């Protein structure tokens, strides 16, 4: 709430302090990044580290512009984002349905539960050669890998969320004439949403890890492939430019996702 005139002095002062705080907070948040960038540039320019190990940030920026101008960055980014998007999308849909179904239908819980527990702690990057063997070096193997790797955190989120659905809310819906299926959609699903959203956030981060590592090992396009091939060519400025691009994409994806989740869950306060 904003104050609307006729307020005592101390509230006005508090208001000013509050507004200052709101400007200062993002400044404080991003100051370390800025300091890091300056330290990087200075350290590289003073040759505290060899230029191949750490090229100056300004050279990296120039290399980024060159990659962008040639279009190389964007075609590879488009490939990568398609793979991550398709794999993650499938993982979210199948994972959520499986998790909620397991929570509401006991026989499925008994059958699928041990499988989920067995595969959950397995490092999914171990599947990179397997999916490449099955589906080759193209999009298919990456999508399958990301799907397999990202599904279980979503499944567990949906499972725990749906299990936590308040029995009295389910009863309320049923007493108002909602069928079992309707209750599942109208009560169990929204109850599961906060936990499900956490699972998807984990999956989102995992999808970037699996994408880049699988593209570095077994691909002919994509940002991971670009990092690998630029590194092998000794174009370290360009390699760093792509690494930073991946980091920025991951950060932006997480921010956009959290904004979406906070909007969808605004009823929580």
């Amino acid at each position: 709430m904003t104050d609307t005139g006729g307020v005592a002095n101390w509230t006005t002062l508090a208001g000013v302090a509050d507004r200052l705080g709101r400007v200062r907070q993002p400044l404080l948040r991003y100051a370390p990044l800025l300091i890091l960038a300056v330290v990087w540039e200075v350290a590289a320019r003073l040759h505290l580290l060899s230029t191949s190990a750490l090229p100056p940030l300004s050279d990296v920026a120039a290399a980024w512009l060159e990659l962008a101008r040639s279009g190389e960055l964007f075609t590879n980014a488009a490939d990568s984002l398609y793979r991550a998007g398709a794999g993650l999308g499938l993982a979210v849909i199948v994972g959520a349905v499986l998790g909620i179904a397991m929570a509401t239908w006991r026989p499925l819980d008994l059958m699928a539960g041990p499988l989920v527990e067995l595969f959950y702690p397995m490092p999914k990057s171990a599947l990179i050669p397997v999916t490449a063997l099955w589906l080759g070096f193209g999009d298919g193997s990456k999508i399958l890998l990301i799907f397999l790797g990202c599904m279980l955190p979503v499944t567990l989120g949906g499972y725990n969320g749906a299990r936590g659905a308040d029995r009295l809310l389910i009863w309320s819906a049923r007493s108002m004439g909602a069928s079992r299926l309707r209750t599942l959609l109208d009560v169990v699903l929204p109850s599961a949403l906060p936990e499900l959203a956490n699972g998807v956030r984990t999956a989102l981060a995992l999808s970037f890890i699996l994408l880049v590592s699988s593209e570095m090992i077994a691909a002919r396009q994509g940002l991971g492939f670009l990092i690998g091939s630029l590194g092998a060519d000794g174009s370290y400025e360009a390699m760093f430019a792509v690494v930073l691009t991946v980091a920025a994409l991951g950060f932006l994806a997480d921010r956009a996702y959290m904004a979406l989740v906070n909007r969808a869950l605004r009823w929580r306060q």
Partner: protein
Amino acid sequence: MGVSAEIVVDGVSHRYRPAVGRAVLALEDVSLEVRSSEFLALLGPSGCGKSTLLYLIGGFLPVEAGKIVVNGKPVAGPGPDRGIVFQHFALFPWKTVRKNVLYGLERQGLPRAEREARAQSFIELVGLSGFEESYPSQLSGGMKQRAAIARTLAFDPRMLLMDEPFGALDAQTRGLMQTELLNIWERTRKTVIFVTHDVREAVYLAGRVAVMSARPGRIKALIDTSFDKNDPDLHRTKAFVDKVEEVWGLVREEAVRAQQKRAP
């Protein structure tokens, strides 16, 4: 008996099976008849199974021994003829007050304009005008319970099952809500089963009080408590005070027994 009994509970027992430990006998051979349009209070110490009995009538728990018949039909699950109000409101937290109240009306397939008009009139009835677009987390306890009552009244159930609906409210709000509930009941003449452990509340609201024994729950006594509820001095009349004392006597024994059972 017979013709005017809307709800017939006949020889019902119920066991709880916790995930760990032994099954607990919550209700034993309970029989009770609730007449159409009557306001009946189920009164007893905590843990006596009075909520369990309500949930069985609501169709939320399966009837395993004995039978429960509502309007001539055995209970086989929840239905919109029996509206329920819980102690902790059970409002859908992701829906606004208006959408909560609309939910039951949507399930009944009423036309949109009629749904909206009906929801609005019940929100006004419980005094929540201006809070239509608020989420439950933004309301006080009393307001949440008003919203929950509006939601249940809106789809016009023949019976109201109320599970300690005012138990989570402060004393003032509680008093106001009791009076409002009586007003609503006098206007609509719905059949009400009201679970409480508050003797004064039971005697004030109900026309009949069923006192339950400590676990396993049985109906220990049925007491007539019909008074002129419109008398503003009812709480100070000798008849009322004596009745509260009489019912207290019955409940006190059971509360003591419940305490002793809990002690190691």
